[in-house]
């Protein structure tokens, strides 16, 4: 793994949502969860764009899920966090915790 991780702020949030939702993480459910958890409303196309970037970087993997009537018979792409993605999230959190600890020590 390269030493430097690049994970944007929105990407990090969306990656967190993928991890939070677990088995049914796809465009709409991620957008809904994001709104519930953070109050942020973002457009569906931005969610898709971020998910594609995350997949390119190897933080998530995806497969096509089952079709349902409420989607007009179209399948969803289900996202799942990869081990590398999870490690990255933890690393980001650890770095922040470390910094926070120092701030409180001042």
């Amino acid at each position, binding site marked *: 793994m390269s030493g430097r991780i690049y994970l944007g702020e929105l990407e990090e949030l969306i990656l967190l949502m993928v991890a939070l939702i677990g088995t049914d993480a796809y465009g709409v459910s991620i957008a809904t969860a994001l709104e519930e958890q953070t109050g942020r409303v973002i457009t*569906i*196309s*931005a969610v898709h764009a971020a998910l*594609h970037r995350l997949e390119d970087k190897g933080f998530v993997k995806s497969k*096509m899920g089952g079709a349902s009537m*409420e*989607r*007009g018979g179209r399948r969803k792409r289900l996202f799942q966090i990869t081990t590398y993605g999870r490690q990255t999230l933890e690393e980001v959190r650890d770095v922040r915790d470390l910094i926070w600890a120092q701030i409180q020590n001042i």
Partner: protein
Amino acid sequence: MVTDPQPPRWAEMLIERFAPKNFAEEIRGDLYEMYLGDVKQRNHRVARRKYVWRVLGFCTHTFFWKQPTQQNRYNMTGSYFKMAKRSLLANKVTTTINVLGLVIGIASALAIISIIRFEQSFDTFHSDYKNTYRMVRVSGGDVAEFRTGIPYAIPPAMKDVASIKKMTKLEYLRGANVDVLSSDGKFERQFIEEDGVVTVEPEFFDVIDFAGSPIQWIAGDAKTSLREPSSVVVTRAIAQKYFGEENPIGRTLRFQKAYDFKITGVIEDFPRNTDFPFTMLVSYSSMPLLFKERMSDWVSSNDGHAVYVVLQEGVNVKDVEAQIAKLHEAKYRKGFVKLSSLLSSATKRSAF
């Protein structure tokens, strides 16, 4: 939900057509799911609008336009352009000559096309222009050598020709010396008009109706303004030139220092692509004042005196010509010049 709710078809097609192949299905699925949610929460119209908005959102993202990578592996378009640019820059003189030649060629082609379009558009905006004919006069059988003038007594005698639906006559006077008189009848200013002066009947605007062109009456109308003798209708340009911002209606113009005509109407300037480039329209009922006894003349004619007819749909032009010729012969027996009327489709291109 009375009708089966559907998102806008064109927006769906946009995704289908342009989205990367492997993503189109999930994108449309997500959009449809959100669309149904909107329909449930709000209404059909709001949902459709939001759908379009989201589709446009997708169009702003770069991933939407990227095709799967292996398709791009053999795409050389970029390097073709690069090669073209380099070889053009390598031969500057040849490039200049070739590009200039191409530019001139294309420019001339466009110019020729627009000229032809302009020429072909002449008087095609009248509602019945395909059945509208101009009467001309030929001596003997040589149709190519026609004269435009029709003797004054002929049109009134043609009233009984059944296949003529509408008829109008006009006398193109061309230029005139026009004096503008003040409201109390004193000489104010003099203008010389080189062309555009004509006498027309109210029926002129039934035959040559300019239906498809933006021409319209600013003051007055065809039926009333051109009925009385000594009336004149001027175009907007003339009204502005003579009176500026003043109201021209009711003012008097003196033509050729002799004939006083009262302005009874103002009409929009005539379009450029017409064979009727009129600026001042004098009522035809003024003709006896101008031409006196010649009005009943069957022999002499004035080349400015033109007659236009609209024929019934599907009438044989030859039959109408024969009828008019017979009419003419019955009235005119002196026999030194034999006139035979000919109808030609001369609303186009037969300039005054």
